[in-house]
């Protein structure tokens, strides 16, 4: 459960990135966050990651009160979230397997569990045959799937994907979105930050629109999946 109540964020240089944002995202929801550059999407992401604190208002995620969370508890909070970065952030000197395993090693999982889960999620994103390749040997879409496997491997409750279809051809974009839908079907909350209005409209999911730091629209499943089902 993600709950933002009257959240505002003003940076020390005076920039007001978010203005009184109030929104609630229940567990298992699939949400797009859209908006032009400078709308506040990155700030919202930083707040959700616990990287920044709101100037005013309240944020609760997965039972953690992010206004009051102790610095030492932030790592444990972050383990409840999986993040897919726009630039993938894969390590070029690690193989696909090692990149995914890295996420488990940093939280101290034993090697046996690491092996089992990494293989499971590489199969899940259909990249088990590429396990021993390096990122430079993969296509852009494959690299993104590795990043997704890494975000999923620690079994987070919420998956945040930042521009998961940017610089991708239509086939790759659909492939990625289908994977995110599949993850959502497993009961995980999926948040997709995107510029791609066409793709957003295609999936008929809940859409939060940010404009100049304001939540200007909360479009809940307009012609959504339940209509399709």
């Amino acid at each position, binding site marked *: 459960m993600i709950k933002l109540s009257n959240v505002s964020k003003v940076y020390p240089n005076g920039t007001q990135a978010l203005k009184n944002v109030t929104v609630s995202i229940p567990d298992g929801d699939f949400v797009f966050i859209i908006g032009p550059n400078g709308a506040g999407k990155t700030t919202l992401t930083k707040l959700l990651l616990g990287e920044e604190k709101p100037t005013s208002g309240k944020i609760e995620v997965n039972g953690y009160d992010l206004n009051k969370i102790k610095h*030492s508890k932030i790592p444990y909070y972050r383990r409840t979230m999986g993040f897919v970065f726009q630039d993938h952030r894969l390590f070029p000197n690690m193989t696909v397997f090692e990149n995914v395993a890295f996420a488990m090693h940093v939280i101290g999982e034993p090697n046996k569990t690491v092996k089992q889960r990494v293989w499971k999620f590489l199969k899940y994103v259909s990249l088990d045959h590429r396990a021993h390749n390096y990122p430079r040997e993969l296509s852009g879409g494959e690299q993104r799937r590795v990043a997704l496997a*890494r975000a999923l491997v620690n079994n987070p409750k919420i998956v945040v994907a930042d521009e998961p279809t940017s610089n991708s051809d239509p086939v790759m974009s659909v492939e990625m979105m289908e994977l995110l839908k599949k993850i959502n079907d497993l009961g995980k909350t999926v948040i997709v930050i995107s510029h791609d209005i066409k793709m957003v409209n295609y999936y008929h999911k809940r859409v939060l629109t940010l404009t100049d730091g304001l939540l200007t629209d909360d479009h809940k499943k307009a012609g959504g999946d339940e209509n399709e089902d």
Partner: protein
Amino acid sequence: MKIKAPKIMYSLKLSAIGLFKNRVMTVSSIFVLLSCLVIMGTFFLVIKNINYNIEKIDGFNKIVLFVDKEADEFETAEIGEKLKAIKDIESVEFESKEDALAEQVAQYTEAEFLLEMYKDNNPLKDSYVITYKPNADVETLRLNIERSIDHIAKLNVNMDVVNQIQNIKNAIAIIFTWLLILLFTVSLFIIINTIKLSVFSRRDEIALMRYIGATNFFVSTPYLIEGLAIGAISAGIAYGVQYVIYKYLMLELVDQYEIISILPFADVKGIVVIGFIAVGVITGFVGSLISLKKYNQENS
């Protein structure tokens, strides 16, 4: 905090990678730290040998107590027992006035008649030769003896020599302390920069670790291990270098002068090993800690 074995293994792996990746700085740090350790070690061993030679000067660590003539045989013997109980006294040796007279007479030829002359009227006194421990405070010891013992005719303490030697020892200790601080600071500075470089080269990895949920402790551990490893490796090599210097310079070159005695390496190796490991490991650990604290404050 419970530390899982896989975390330690992974941290060890990252440390090894870090040390190898920044090998130029790693080797520089080891070189600087080991140089500092060897300079400190050599200075320490020189001091140790100076002290050893001072202690060997005959009569230096001795006080002579003359018993007054009013003390009877029983009281004189009691003085010996009381002296043995006083702190910092290593040994006590009794010399009767008869033995003293005989010894003096033996130094002169044709003076045996003196023995006969002073047989019933010996002008000398019974005495105790007190040997005190090397690090004893002689002034305090003198006061303790005067307070605890009756029938003291005279207490012979060569305070001028004692004070002079004590002053030399103090001066050496001050120089050694400052040298230690200086070399420790230089080593610390180099290690801080090595770790800073190591952290900088892995900043993307660290940022991602944090996003995934790695604790500050987990992020910091590999760098702390790197610092410890630099300290331990430096200490190990420094010990070898120190051994060679001691064996070939001090034992083989200096020891040939009969007037100077050099301690065998076996007598000092324990303290050299402990000192090198302690200074090396503490320097490495503290250097890493300072570097990481700064980085964590700026980036967490």
